[in-house]
């Protein structure tokens, strides 16, 4: 019960009820006050006018009117009397002339007791005194009993109508508080289970108010994301352990065996070299993972500057060209003139190098790779295509996951982190990457860069356009074979 009283729903209902009650009481008070003022003023005017009119009449008519008026006043609301100049009663129902009443013809409020009226049990009367032309005094009065009655009516209505509403509202508040508490408790139970590791639990939705549902939906979204990340983390953790264990156990076995059987310095040196190679491989995995994490946490833009992506692609192609050549794979670079982009040159180089490395690695002998840069209108697009086995549609989303290696690539060296690194770099730049099939077999990777849009960068972006205007040949015959010797000798 205490928890219900403390619940926000109950407290809200209680506050609203209280405010409603206060407002109604104030309203009633105002209505009563306004009506009372009106009624009093009406009676005042009535009595004043009667007294003024009667004072004009001949003496006999005054006495007759006073007597008949009293006689006809069944409700005993009226008082009327005529006193002679000495203060003795001539006619009427007042026992004596009120001593403190000014004879000015205006209405004055008096207690009934002060006038020695015994037949009226109410408290207040309105009295007018007026001296007649013959020296006698006319007193007219009227009870304002109705005002008091009205107050009683108003109080009764308030008691019967509004006061019972208050416990009703409080009861409603308790009910609402109870329901809210139940919902919150259900949510707490679910969240407790989540906390204990049942990450697949979800908050109930659709059984209550929209605000609760929205909150539950948000929390559920968060839980789903958390579950996904934890699963990924778990898988990555397993993969790290697995991928590290392989070279480490190999190193261990080699060292153990060498210690047992090696007899010459050469044998020892060979084993040590192999061990160092194995440790390097393990360190490489760790370094790659750390780099991915670092890139993901590097604030975007800190190391950014204008980058000519077409030039960068040519440099990467230049670095990898001989590898393709040695493997019997032909490499071709086709670059259009494209605007400068904003980015981290070093990281973009690394991303492109990874993509180019992959393309060459998966292309069989006598195959071909092509690196192209074109302008899509919204920014430069780097297209890297190869004549390798390609990536099946169902695997495309997965190849960017850490340690994911397609079965087909088990015999190709690598640690399965290259594309994750690419993804991290691309994500940091706000660029996007897409995979598709190459007509005739093979894979096409496209890196969609975003052209910078603010003014400072726009000025820099004009440069390549100016350059292509001066050197139209650069743009039109940018397609060149990597093997073509530059005229330097």
């Amino acid at each position, binding site marked *: 019960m205490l928890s219900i009283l403390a619940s926000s729903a109950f407290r809200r209902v209680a506050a609203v009820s209280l405010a409603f009650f206060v407002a109604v009481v104030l309203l009633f008070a105002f209505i009563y006050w306004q009506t009372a003022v009106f009624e009093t003023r009406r009676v005042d005017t009535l009595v004043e006018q009667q007294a003024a009119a009667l004072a004009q009449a001949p003496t006999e008519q005054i006495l007759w009117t006073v007597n008949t008026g009293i006689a006809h006043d069944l409700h005993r609301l009226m008082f009327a009397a005529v006193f002679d100049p000495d203060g003795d009663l001539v006619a009427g129902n007042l026992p004596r002339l009120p001593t403190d009443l000014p004879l000015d013809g205006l209405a004055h409020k008096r207690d009934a007791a002060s006038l020695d009226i015994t037949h009226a049990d109410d408290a207040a009367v309105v009295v007018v005194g007026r001296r007649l032309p013959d020296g006698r005094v006319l007193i007219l009065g009227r009870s304002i009993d109705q005002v008091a009655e009205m107050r009683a009516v108003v109080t009764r209505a308030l008691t019967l109508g509004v006061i019972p509403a208050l416990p009703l509202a409080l009861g409603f508040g308790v009910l609402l508080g109870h329901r809210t508490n139940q919902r919150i408790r259900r949510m707490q139970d679910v969240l407790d289970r989540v906390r204990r590791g049942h990450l697949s639990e979800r908050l109930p939705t659709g059984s209550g108010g929209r605000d609760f549902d929205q909150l539950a939906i948000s929390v559920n979204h968060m839980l789903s994301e958390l579950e996904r990340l934890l699963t990924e983390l778990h898988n990555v953790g397993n993969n790290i352990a697995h991928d590290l264990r392989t070279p480490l156990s190999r190193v261990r076995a080699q060292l153990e065996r060498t210690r047992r059987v090696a007899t010459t310095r050469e044998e020892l040196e060979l084993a040590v070299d192999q061990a160092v190679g194995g440790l390097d491989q393990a360190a490489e995995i760790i370094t790659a993972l750390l780099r991915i994490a670092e*890139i993901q946490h590097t604030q975007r833009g800190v190391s950014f500057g204008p980058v000519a992506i077409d030039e960068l692609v040519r440099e990467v192609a230049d670095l990898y060209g001989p590898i393709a050549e040695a493997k019997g794979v032909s490499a071709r670079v086709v670059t259009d003139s494209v605007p400068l982009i904003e980015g981290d040159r070093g990281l973009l180089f*690394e991303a492109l190098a990874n993509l180019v490395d992959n393309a060459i690695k998966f292309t069989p002998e006598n195959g071909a790779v092509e690196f192209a840069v074109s302008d899509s209108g919204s920014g430069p697009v780097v297209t890297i295509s190869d004549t390798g086995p390609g990536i099946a549609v169902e695997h495309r989303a997965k190849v960017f996951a850490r340690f994911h290696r397609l079965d087909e690539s088990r015999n190709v060296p690598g640690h399965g982190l290259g594309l994750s690194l690419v993804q991290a770099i691309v994500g940091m730049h706000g660029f996007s990457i897409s995979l598709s099939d190459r007509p005739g077999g093979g894979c096409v990777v496209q890196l969609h860069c975003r052209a910078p849009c603010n003014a400072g960068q726009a000025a820099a972006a004009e440069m390549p356009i100016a350059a292509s205007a001066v050197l139209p040949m650069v743009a039109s015959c940018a397609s060149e074979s990597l093997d073509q010797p530059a005229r330097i*000798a």
Partner: protein
Amino acid sequence: MNVSGPTSEGGQAARPGRRILLIEDDIEIANEICSDLADHDYDVRHAATGPEGAQQAEDGTSDLLIVDRMLPGLDGLAIIKRLRERNLRTPVLVLSALGDVNERVRGLKAGGDDYLTKPFALSELQARVEALLRRPGDIRETELRAGSLKLDLLERTVQRHGRPIELLAREFQLLLYFMRRPEQVITRGMLLEHIWNCHFLPQSNPIDVHIGKLRRKLGGPGEPPLIQNVRGQGFILTPDA
């Protein structure tokens, strides 16, 4: 970590007696580095804290400083800045466990001359130390010679025994780098950094393929190769007689 033997295979001994100050707080790494440098006949001093290192660095008796980025007391970059403010031009090699994208830039901006990210191979450190101590002499030289090899920077031509050799622009750049550092071990990392402006080690090994191509172009029938592999370390240009 590649630990090379006390005497590098193929690498010639460094000039003895050059003084190196190592400022590094990790005692084990410091010991490894000190013994390796001592094996190469360097005179090594070690400081384990920032203030101690700064004090020793500022006495101006070191030929080279190896400074860890994160040090107790005084940050490595602060030491370098203080040194440069006092107009001490001692070359500095910055070591760092921070592979942060912007770290290298920060290190070089502070006045460092080269930057190595941990973990590094001792042979890589050795090569960089040697490179820093033997800065290319006169870079205004327009004609370089290494034995039978002649490189003309103005005409951009290469000859061996008077025979013209046709090179691609990148190959020319590569050869120039070697010829300015004869008989000095050049690592793959150094070539990637200085020729391709690339600060990571690619998975495939493009450098070896480039060197192989260059070596084939330089070597006529029966001629000894000028650029040799130094196992586990890199390459070296040895002028023929």
